[in-house]
């Protein structure tokens, strides 16, 4: 065979990345987070159904992108830190607190880590909020996209986003954006996971590939 000289398959020695498309958007009364489900090691897809939306607390989730190990570890650590914090404070933590904890880790270890987490959730003080923590900065935005697939949808989200969308419109916006990105980015694909967080709590949803919207070339 051509070039079959290694004992192990190539993908075992490749770094495992969540290639990814992640997106989070705030609406009046809550947030919607979305992600694809592909985990790649080089050219192989090692997990096609990974849920990249990780709970940090009851009403705070984060979306993982970049190195799978780094992102998962950050999410676990912050989950623990938030539990301790919310017991000390005696009430549900603020989304900003969760984002700050993520930012502190991302910034302190920025040379060693390569993961970008988008933190979004609902709290009593400021309602639905979305924070980006890329490279160790902390910034609140009306919506955020991240991961390798996000490059392809900047134009789409810039054109389609409007302030004051309803919950349903925000969910459609997220599904459309994910579908378009998964259509163009080789490192994103599989199913779409959605989490909608509002005062009542968090509702998770999975949309299989064949139920995603189709666009002109499909």
């Amino acid at each position: 065979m051509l070039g079959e000289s290694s004992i192990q398959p190539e993908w075992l020695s490749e770094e495992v990345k969540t290639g990814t498309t992640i997106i989070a958007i705030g609406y009046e009364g809550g947030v919607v987070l979305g992600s694809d489900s592909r985990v790649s090691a080089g050219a192989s897809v090692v997990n096609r159904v990974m849920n990249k939306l990780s709970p940090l607390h009851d009403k705070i989730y984060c979306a993982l992108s970049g190195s799978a190990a780094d992102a998962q570890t950050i999410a676990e650590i912050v989950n623990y830190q938030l539990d301790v914090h919310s017991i000390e404070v005696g009430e549900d933590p603020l989304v900003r607190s969760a984002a700050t904890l993520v930012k502190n880790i991302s910034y302190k270890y920025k040379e060693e880590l390569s993961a970008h987490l988008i933190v979004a959730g609902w709290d009593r003080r400021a309602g639905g909020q979305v924070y980006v923590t890329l490279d160790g900065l902390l910034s609140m935005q009306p919506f955020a996209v991240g991961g390798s697939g996000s490059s392809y949808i900047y134009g789409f989200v810039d054109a389609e986003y409007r302030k004051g969308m309803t919950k349903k419109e925000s969910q459609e916006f997220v599904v459309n954006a994910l579908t378009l990105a998964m259509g163009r980015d080789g490192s994103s694909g599989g199913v779409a996971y959605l989490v909608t967080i509002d005062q009542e709590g968090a509702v998770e949803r999975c949309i299989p590939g064949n139920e995603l919207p189709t666009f002109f070339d499909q």
Partner: protein
Amino acid sequence: SCDFYVSPARRSSGFRATTIMAVEFDGGVVIGADSRTTTGAYIANRVTDKLTPIHDRIFCCRSGSAADTQAIADAVSYQLGFHSIELDEPPLVQTAANLFKQMCYRYREELMAGIIVAGWDKRRGGQVYTVPMGGMLVRQPVSVGGSGSSYIYGFIDSKYKSGMTKEECLRFTADALALAMERDGSSGGVVRLAAITESGLERSVILGNQLPTFFSA
């Protein structure tokens, strides 16, 4: 001069400081490009014209190394002009596209050129052919190229529908280029548009302050 000159350090990453686009409609094509040429962080030309005529009804949009694309376009214009005289009729867009492809494929290791060929001919009407780096050739109803193109794939996929009129195509192209220019640091300036039909060529420019505006987070 140095339209979109790319320094050797940048070359290996395939850096193409541009956004170009072409759309077919029934009766012709619309082509568009930004107008920024950068040498590193300096904008060497902020009003570049990246839409180059190859024949009366055939244009090309150039991205990549300016030197390479100018040389290729000159060579193809010459070959096409000669061919058209031999044939004694206007050349086909497919012919022009194939000439580009032959050159870009043969010299693929030396060249850095991403070209979109678009025009009108009597046989097949409006056509868009893309010849990306590496030298493949494929016809597409809508095609984008350059560094800024990554950001608008999602927009194009969601907004394009077949059967658009010339005005709708012009608006669609201007919107897409404006969005790309907003996000891509290597694209900017004005939007240059051209509509090519049987009756001829209409060129227009949309100045910076007249560009469509969108939300930016």
